[in-house]
């Protein structure tokens, strides 16, 4: 079954610094991949998604992600982090056909001012 792994549980960056959150997937064919963000006390919001085509995907709030088949990765990036980006970030993929979304364990981002 398809799955995703987020190797970093916590990451701390300074405001204005660049950010990269890692996500590795396990699936033979081209997977459907997503990044969601959860701000404190909120539900999950979709940042971006990859289905096919251009491997560099632009999302909301200045985020982007790059699909790299050779590395089985779909890392999330932002060139300059804002304090409001502090949140938990989840990578996700479809499993078992249909519409079932499987999530990674999440990466908690802390932004130092």
């Amino acid at each position, binding site marked *: 079954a398809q799955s995703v792994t987020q190797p970093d549980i916590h990451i701390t960056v300074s405001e204005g610094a660049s950010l990269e959150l890692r996500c590795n997937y396990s699936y033979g064919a081209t997977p459907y991949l997503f990044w969601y963000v959860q701000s404190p006390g909120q539900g*999950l919001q979709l940042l971006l998604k990859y289905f096919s085509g251009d491997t560099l995907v632009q999302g909301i709030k200045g985020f982007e992600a790059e699909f790299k088949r050779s590395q089985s990765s779909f890392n999330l990036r932002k060139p300059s982090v804002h304090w409001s980006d502090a949140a938990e970030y*989840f990578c996700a993929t479809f499993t078992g056909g249909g*519409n079932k979304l499987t999530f990674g364990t*999440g990466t908690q981002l802390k932004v130092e001012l």
Partner: protein
Amino acid sequence: DVKVTQSSRYLVKRTGEKVFLECVQDMDHENMFWYRQDPGLGLRLIYFSYDVKMKEKGDIPEGYSVSREKKERFSLILESASTNQTSMYLCASSSEPGSGANVLTFGAGSRLTVL
């Protein structure tokens, strides 16, 4: 915007009580989901539904049941709450699978504490 509304943000229940978590979506979505979120474990799928009166088990259905009598409403039921069901519960909905269509929209969550 699609709205997914979870009626209770915070609940405190006692062991053995029957608990209902309600979720309503307003965009006529076919698919609805219940996830449980725990620190270090991410989100795990409990149950989902593709249509009215239809339900499918997710990855951790034990101790839970669901009801979908109307298209817009999907209820999660804990028949006899236990302390290990203390968690954040997230409801989501989506339209039919298809290119770009199978994006989940989440509610704000219901934090359940079982004493």
